[in-house]
């Protein structure tokens, strides 16, 4: 049995436990609700000598990621974690971390972005960072947050990838919700993650290197970016391989997405994060009512598994995409909807793809709302543009 303990814990503890087991060489982080408990718990582990990690309690998130970049350039395995405004403050450094090809792992506890200031969950923060060159793995619950964190290190550090990775978990809903989590043996997790072998390091006396050179006059920038895109493509393959290996070692396979009742579905809902759990419950109830509703839970948003998604959904004529953030494009659709729509552009059978927005700023997402969405799809009765679920106004 690989499970050493099953415990009722909050999501932040599940993530901190993964960090303890990974035992990075350096962690630089700054507190922000709802991520704070991760830094606190990890600091306690450091203070008690449970990990050999050098913890850098920086004075801002900008410095957190900057210190991570410096440490990763020094050949260390590095982690940080943040939320919301913290991620926004890191924005400049997100691109630098990926551009320098440093495999930093960062759990981000999803919280919306101000204003108005609001500490609760939506995906505005991480969706805003979708084009920053980071891998993004979304978690439905604490168990997945734990397991995604462990896999993220392997994926990011793969020689064909070497990109930073974010693990996303919904603020409060997952981070502060107590759930049963199965933890694996330290030894097994450590063997799975393996020793980090940096391809380059500033701390090799025989081979001093320059990190972050200026692409001023000769112009290789375009080529670097092209190579980064290629690395993202490789990540697609590696996410799958690592997910399968995880399954072999720990008994639970991970892929790009999970489906539920999709085989014979006439309509499907797509969700990511904790909203997927709610949606699953709704689908179950709708099925009991005789409605042929299915769902797809997206785990991987960057890189985007477009081909596989289209294949999995090709038989479904009506798809509803549940977005927990907006793009303010003035038109319909959150970021997931846009991505799904674009994935189907070349498909032979183009389904109808409906945009739903839900849960902004932590607005409760109920099975009723998900059921309402499912019913709308079945009845073909949905408004033009985006349908806002759970808005206080009567009409959207």
């Amino acid at each position, binding site marked *: 049995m690989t499970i050493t303990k099953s415990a009722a814990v909050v999501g932040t503890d599940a993530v901190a436990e993964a960090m303890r087991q990974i035992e990075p*060489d*350096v962690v*630089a982080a700054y507190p922000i609700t709802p991520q704070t408990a991760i830094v606190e718990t990890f600091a306690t582990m450091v203070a008690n000598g449970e990990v*050999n*990690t*050098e913890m*850098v*309690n*920086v*004075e*801002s998130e*900008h*410095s*957190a990621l*900057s*210190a*991570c*970049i*410096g*440490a*990763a*350039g*020094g*050949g*260390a395995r*590095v982690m940080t974690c943040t939320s919301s405004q913290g991620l926004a403050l890191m924005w*400049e*450094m997100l691109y*630098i971390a990926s551009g*320098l090809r440093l495999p930093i792992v960062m759990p981000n506890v999803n919280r919306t972005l101000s204003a108005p200031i609001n500490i609760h969950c939506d995906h505005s923060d991480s969706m805003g960072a979708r084009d920053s060159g980071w891998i993004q793995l979304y978690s439905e619950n604490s168990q997945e947050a734990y397991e995604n964190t462990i896999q993220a290190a392997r994926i990011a550090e793969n020689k064909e990838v070497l990109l930073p990775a974010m693990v996303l978990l919904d603020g409060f809903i997952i981070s502060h919700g107590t759930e049963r989590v199965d933890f694996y043996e330290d030894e097994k997790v450590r063997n799975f993650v393996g020793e980090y072998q940096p391809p380059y390091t*500033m*701390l*090799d*006396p025989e081979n*001093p*290197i*320059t*990190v*972050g*050179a*200026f*692409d*001023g*006059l*000769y112009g*290789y920038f375009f080529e670097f970016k092209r190579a980064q895109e290629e690395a993202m493509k490789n990540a697609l393959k590696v996410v799958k391989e690592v997910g399968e290996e995880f399954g072999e070692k720990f008994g639970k396979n991970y892929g790009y997405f999970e489906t539920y009742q999709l085989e014979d579905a006439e309509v499907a809902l797509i969700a990511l994060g904790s909203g997927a759990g709610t949606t699953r419950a709704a689908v179950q109830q709708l099925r009991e009512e005789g409605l042929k509703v299915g769902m797809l839970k997206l785990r991987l948003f960057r890189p985007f598994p477009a081909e596989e998604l289209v294949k999995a959904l090709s038989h479904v004529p009506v798809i509803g995409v549940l977005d927990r953030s907006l793009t303010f494009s003035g038109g319909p659709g959150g970021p997931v909807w846009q991505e799904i729509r674009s994935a189907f552009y070349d498909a032979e059978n183009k389904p109808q793809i409906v945009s739903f927005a839900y849960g902004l700023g932590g607005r409760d997402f109920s099975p009723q709302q998900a059921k309402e969405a499912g019913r709308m799809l079945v009845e073909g009765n949905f408004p033009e543009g985006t349908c806002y679920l759970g808005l206080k106004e009567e009409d959207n």
Partner: protein
Amino acid sequence: MKLKELTHKRELLTGGHRLCAGCGASIAVRQVLLAAPEDVNIVVANPTGCLEVSTTIYPYTAWRTSYIHSAFENVASTLSGVESAYRSLHRQGKIKDDYHFIAFGGDGGTYDIGFQALSGALERGHRMLYVCYNNEAYMNTGIQRSGATSLGAWTTTSPVGSQIPGKSQNRKDLTSIVAAHGIPYVAQASISHWRDLVNKTAKALSVDGPSFINVLSPCHRGWRFPMEQTIELAKLGVQSCVWPLYEVEDGEYTLNFKAKNKKPLEEYIKNQGRFAHLMKEENREIKDKLQEHVDKEWHRLLRKCGETAEV
């Protein structure tokens, strides 16, 4: 340390970089690196600025040391990350060699946008030397005012207009602000006094914690003077007490240079285009104010150093 000995040392910033001929920044860097012990490895870090863009033009690098640049406002946090990696890997026995960590930041990257990161890194106590190569403006972006720019100085964002002639504010005293962090070693130096800077670097690198040296490093492009006068101008800065040389060791201030005859400000500014308008009668008041400020700061420093006699 003898000059002759220094000339035999291996330069860690090689020729072929693209800094302007006569640039004060490269002189500061070379003097500092010449003072570093040869048997210790070095990681150098830069924020964005003249030094960075001119020494790391891909696919080349002018640095024989390991080097990192990540962004403009964060050289202190970036280097604190490198130092933390070293600490961690050294403790785990994965690295055996000794390292020094040296940041060279422009005044913009130090006084202004990078100040928070600097203050945080100092407070955390990383073992690193932070050298500010101070040319008193944002040179890389074409000479804009910074918190280190003197009252009255022309820059492109403190232009000499008909209503506002040059910068309206005094520079801030960053060296004292850094000293207030209570770190083991803080100093002010100038590229004109190489021996002083070399000694200070040796001291700074010997402390177990953060150290900071603010080095006056004139930029002829921004200050508007002939490029062969870089050292001369730095020297006049010291002799006029515009840029006094001193150090703060564990809170104790020591004056390192006391001019026999303190030169008037005018001697220092008269050959600099950025102050040309201050030589006009209509701007006399600003020049007097600047002189007043220099004198006030000088006297304050003398008191801190326990020097009573005026010269």
